């Protein structure tokens, strides 16, 4: 199994000062799999997926992305960041650039595509997330849902193999959640490997291949959505599910 795993984490540990945020996470994700992570606040979900594209540096254990190990090696960091896209809870669009510039910035400067090539693909992506007409506006002029879809397009513009979502709908008004989730479902259908931290259980049930439950920096329980929501094994999982469902 490890051989086909596109993400392979072995005993990942991470401390903030003397606080241990991750207590040895083991996880293998195969290509095309959609993994949803749930868990109480402060359980280390964000920290974990941020380790996967090295926004946080893990201190023990190993992480392989597409068989490249995440180390201090400049070459590896560069390669992995090109391969892993990320969508943040607070969008983090660049406010001083137009939507099109937001999307094409990285392809042009990091991937070294030509401007026309990048813009053509950017237009295609905007089409896919359903906002082709907003290309020349600035992020501040868009609604939250539109901004988050732009953020998805921006991540996709690098043509990553893996997409990380950190609570992409938490900062949105309820009526905008659907449009973002739809875009994500679309993506999942196309066979993108995705790791999604979310509290949207409906999404997890419908789209996820696997649901992971985190607590206290540990991977407490993992399973298919069906197993997970109907027949959780662990007490902590049961407690958590009873609270949110």
């Amino acid at each position: 199994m490890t051989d086909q795993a596109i993400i392979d984490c072995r005993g990942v540990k991470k401390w903030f000062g003397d606080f241990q945020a991750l207590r040895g996470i083991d996880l293998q994700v195969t290509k095309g799999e959609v993994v949803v992570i749930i868990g109480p606040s402060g359980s280390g979900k964000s920290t974990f997926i941020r380790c996967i594209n090295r926004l946080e540096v893990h201190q023990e254990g190993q992480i392989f992305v597409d068989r490249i190990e995440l180390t201090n090696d400049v070459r590896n960091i560069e390669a992995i960041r090109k391969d892993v896209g990320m969508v943040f809870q607070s969008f983090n669009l660049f406010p001083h650039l137009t939507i099109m510039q937001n999307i094409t910035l990285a392809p042009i400067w990091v991937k070294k595509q030509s401007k026309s090539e990048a813009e053509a693909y950017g237009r295609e992506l905007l089409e896919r997330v359903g906002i082709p007409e907003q290309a020349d506006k600035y992020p501040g002029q868009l609604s939250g849902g539109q901004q988050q879809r732009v953020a998805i397009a921006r991540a996709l513009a690098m043509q990553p193999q893996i997409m990380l979502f950190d609570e992409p709908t938490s900062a949105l008004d309820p009526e905008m959640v659907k449009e973002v989730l739809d875009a994500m479902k679309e993506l999942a259908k196309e066979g993108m490997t995705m790791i999604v931290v979310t509290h949207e259980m409906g999404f997890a049930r419908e789209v996820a291949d696997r649901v992971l439950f985190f607590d206290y920096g540990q991977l407490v329980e993992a399973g298919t959505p069906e197993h997970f929501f109907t027949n959780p094994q662990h007490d902590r999982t049961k407690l958590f599910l009873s609270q949110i469902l």
Partner: protein
Amino acid sequence: MTTAIQRPTRPPFYRDVTVLKWVFQIAFLIGIVTVFWLLGTFSIANLAKQNLAVSWDFMARPVGFQVAEGFTTFPESGFEALLVGVTNMLRVTISGILAATILGIIIGVSRLSHNWLVNKLATVYIETIRNIPLLVQIVFWGIVVSIIPDIVVDETSDGSLKSLFGLRLLPEGWIFASPKGFALPWFVPTDGRWQWVGFMIVGAVATRYVYRWRIRLQEAGTAEARAFLWSGGVLLAFAIVGTFAHPVMGIFGPVFGFVAAFFQNTPIIIFQIVLAGLAVGGAYYIIKKRLDELRTPAGLGKLTDDDWFRLVMAAVVALGLALFFLLQSGPVEAIVGQGTIFGQDIGFSQLFTGLENRFSFVGGAPFDFSLPAIDGRFNNYLPDAGHVITRAYFALWIGVVLYTAAFIGEAVRAGVLAVPRGQTEAGFAVGLRRSQLLRMIVLPQAFRIILPPVGNQYLNLAKNTSLGIAVAYPDIVQVGQTIFNQTGQTIPIVISWMAWYSFVSLTLSAIVNRWNKKLKLVER
């Protein structure tokens, strides 16, 4: 299928982010050091060509010039001359800060006034003063003083100011105004003043306790506080009693003498060891504290670059200092007072000897009231009679005060405006009177916002006193400049300037930060 615990693999060094980061930094450091080394060699070589080796000798040698004003006008050495400059600078700075604060608050409040005339006057003041360079203003005031006879002095008078715009002022001979400045009646300190000041220090401590006591009573609800009234009264009582009772403080004379003797007679090696021990101990304390904060279950591998840097720096500095103190007895001797620095006896021993001499049961009032007087031949003011405000001092002082007050006024206005309206309304709602509202609700909150920018203005005022050189006010810059014109010793003078101003800045910002912290604590 948990795997055995593994560390991430190490990449080759030339691709390791950490290694690259440190290589870059060290190269950067080497580059900077090289540039300074080159500049240093260039200038030393150039000085050598002019037969001028860098030397601090002028600090000990007599200077060939007279300083226009200060605690002495004939400094015995370069060091003393610079010291005169320093005290002159402090004189303007301290009195300037006081005056600018008062005026600035008045201006700021006027800007908030509902009275159209007052409001507009304050606005015009601020817009005029802020937009003209301070230097121009100082020069302007210098000129104003120099044409004083044309403006205010009666033609018949001997320079003493009898009337202003036709209004009769004080008795003749009390106030003088001339192109050389002003002279006023003043309390001239006598030898007893040191003991009196000592008495007042005791008084200040007592006042502090009284103030706290009143506040406690208020909080307990037993009495109306009137804390300011009480503490002011206590301080005043001390001032008056101290005028007669200050010789009591003479008991401290022998104590100071004993301390002086201690510094003089203890073998120097003991001080060396103590100082080195302090340096090492301090560093040990800092490092240990930091490590305790950082200790993690996974050991100390989690230190960030910054942590490493701080710890290593602390250790290196401490060891360097300790070695310095142990190997170099000269500086330690100078600090303690057993040796000299720049030919000056300025160690602790001398300090306490001086204090001993000043606390020696002199009777009589600590201050004499004296009228100004004029030296008949040149119409100079006698420096020891009354209080003389020279033209240069006045021009600089009024310049920095008016200028700084404009900025303080703006800060005060902004601070008061920043207090939310709801606060005022809530205050009225709970039935506070207007004066209480200001004192208890608005001002404390505004104060917190006002303090940082005003502290910054104090710092600016301190630095701006250096502009006194334009009207020949002998502050440290002017004196230093005179010295290097004479001796050519640019580099030591520049170093002295930097040391002094850095010291002032650090001290002032430390004070402001402390206040800031205190206010923040109150907030919680």
